[in-house]
C-alpha cells in the first residue's frame, strides 16, 4: 500500500525519460476536499451556534457541541499518532540513493499541494479566529467550550499539530537532502505551534476572570501571537528546499536559460 501511495502522491509524472511535473490536479483535488470540510464546519457553526450554542447548561448543548468536542479531542490526536507512526514505519531505508528525478518530483508534490492547500488552511484560520472575535462580542460566555472555541482550539490546534508533525516526519524520511540531519527552521515552526497547547490552556483559565467583556487585543491573547509568529521559520525551511531544488535543476548555464526564455544575455 505504501508503494502505491508513494508513487501516486510523490512521483506522479516522472518516468525514465520524462522530466517531473507538479501534480496540480492532485493538489487542487486535496484543496477542494479541504474547502468542502471548512465549508461544512462553518455551516454547522452558523446553524447551531444560535439555536443550541448559547447555553452550555442545556442538554442540547451537550448533544450538539460537547460531543463534537470530545470526538475532536480524542480522535484527532489518535489520527495524528497513527499517521505519524505509519510515515515512520514505511520510511525509505535507502533514501540516499533516491534518483534525482524522483527527488525533484517529491519536491514538486510537496510544494504544489502546500501552495494550493495553504490557501484553504489560511482562510480557515482567519475564518475561525475572527468568528471567535465576532461571537464573543455578542454572546457572553458561560463556558470555556464555546461554539467558536470548539472549532478554533479543539479542531484547529490538534489538526494543525498532527499535520505539522506528519509533515516533519515525511520531509526527514522521504527527501534525501533532509535525511540524517534535522531542519532547524522547520523544527522551530513546529515547536512554536506546539506552544498553542499551553497557551490555549492559559487563555481558557484567564477567561474565567474576564467572561463579560471582550478585548481581543488583551494581553491574555498575546501569547498566541508568539506561537503564531514561529511560522516565520517556515521561510527558512523554504530556503533549504530552494537550495536543494537549485542543485537538482542547474544543469545548464544562465546564458542558455536566458536564450531559451527569450531574454537578452547580460
Amino acid at each position: 500500500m505504501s508503494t502505491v501511495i508513494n508513487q501516486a502522491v510523490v512521483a506522479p509524472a516522472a518516468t525514465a525519460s520524462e522530466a517531473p511535473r507538479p501534480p496540480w490536479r492532485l493538489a487542487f483535488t486535496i484543496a477542494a476536499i479541504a474547502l468542502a470540510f471548512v465549508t461544512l464546519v462553518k455551516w454547522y457553526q452558523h446553524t447551531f451556534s444560535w439555536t443550541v450554542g448559547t447555553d452550555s447548561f442545556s442538554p442540547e448543548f451537550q448533544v450538539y457541541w460537547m460531543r463534537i468536542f470530545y470526538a475532536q479531542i480524542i480522535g484527532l490526536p489518535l489520527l495524528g499518532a497513527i499517521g505519524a507512526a505509519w510515515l515512520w514505519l514505511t520510511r525509505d531505508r535507502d533514501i540516499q540513493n533516491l534518483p534525482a528525478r524522483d527527488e525533484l518530483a517529491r519536491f514538486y508534490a510537496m510544494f504544489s499541494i502546500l501552495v494550493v492547500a495553504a490557501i484553504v488552511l489560511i482562510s480557515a484560520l482567519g475564518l475561525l479566529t475572527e468568528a471567535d472575535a465576532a461571537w464573543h462580542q455578542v454572546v457572553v460566555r458561560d463556558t470555556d467550550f464555546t461554539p467558536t472555541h470548539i472549532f478554533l482550539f479543539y479542531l484547529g490546534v490538534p489538526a494543525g499539530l498532527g499535520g505539522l508533525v506528519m509533515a516533519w516526519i515525511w520531509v526527514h524520511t522521504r527527501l534525501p537532502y533532509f535525511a540524517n540531519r534535522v531542519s532547524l527552521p522547520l523544527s522551530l515552526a513546529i515547536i512554536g505551534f506546539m506552544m498553542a497547547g499551553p497557551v490555549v490552556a492559559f487563555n481558557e483559565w484567564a477567561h474565567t476572570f474576564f467572561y463579560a467583556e471582550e478585548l481581543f487585543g488583551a494581553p491574555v491573547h498575546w501569547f498566541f501571537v508568539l506561537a503564531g509568529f514561529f511560522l516565520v521559520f517556515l521561510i527558512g525551511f523554504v530556503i533549504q528546499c530552494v537550495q536543494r531544488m537549485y542543485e537538482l535543476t542547474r544543469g545548464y548555464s544562465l546564458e542558455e536559460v536566458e536564450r531559451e526564455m527569450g531574454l537578452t544575455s547580460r
Partner: protein
Amino acid sequence: MSIELGSTEQGEISRAPRGKALNNVQDQVQAWRNADLFFFPLISILIGGAAVFLCALTVGDWSYWMDWRDRRWWPLLTPLLLLVLPTVATYAFWKYFKLPVAATGLALGFWLSQIISRYVNFYLFTAFPMNWVMPEVWIGAAVVLDAVLLITRSFALTGLVGGFLFGLLFSAMNWPVVAPMHMPVQLGDTVMTLADYMGFQYIRTAMPEYVRIIEAGTLRTFGTNVAPVSAFVSGFFAILVYYVFIWIGSKGANPAWLKKLV
C-alpha cells in the same frame, strides 16, 4: 538533550544528487518557472495568514469596529503591527530572490482573507453591517514600502524612508472609509460621531468605556491636529519596527541544520 548546530556542508554522507533530474534546457526553464509558481504564493499566503492572526490578537478591536478607529491609538498601533510580518518576509525575498514584492503580496493576501472573514463572520454569522466592520486597507502603504526597496536596494534606507512612509500614510490612505463615520450627529441633547451612534445600536462586549481604548484626555481638545501627530509618531516608530524585524527576518530565513535532535 543535546542540540548541535551544523552547516549545510557538514553532513557525514554524500548529498550529491543521484543522476540528472532534467533532460534539456527546456526542462530547466520549466523547473524554474515552477519554482516561481510555488514560492511567492506560498510565502505570501502563509505569512499573510499569520499576519491576520497576529493583528487580530493585538489590534483586532480597532480593525473590527468603526467606533474604535480613533485619531490617537488606531493610526499609531495598527500600522506598527501590520509592518511586522511584511518586513520579515521582505528580508527573505530580497536577500535570496531579489524580489521587492513581499509587502505587497502580504497586503493583498491579508486584505482578501480579511474581507472574506468580515463578510462570513461579522455579517452572516453575527449580523453586523459591513460598513461597520470594514477591514483597514494597507496595500498602498505596502506598495510604497516595496517601491522604496526597489529604488534604494538597501534595507537601511528602506527602513528610514519606506518604514516612515508606511506609518505616516496608513491613516491617510484609510481616511475615505473612516471619514463618513466621523461625521457629527445629534441624538437628543448629545452630539456624537456617527461611529459612536452606530456603536450604541450594536451592543457588544467591547463597548464599556473602560474597555474601549480610544482617544482620551486633553488631546480631544486639539481639534484637527491629533490624527497627523499620531501618523508622524507612527512613522518614526515604524522605522524602528522595520530594523528590528529585518534582523528577526534574517534569523527566520536562516537555513540552519541540527546534526541531531536529542
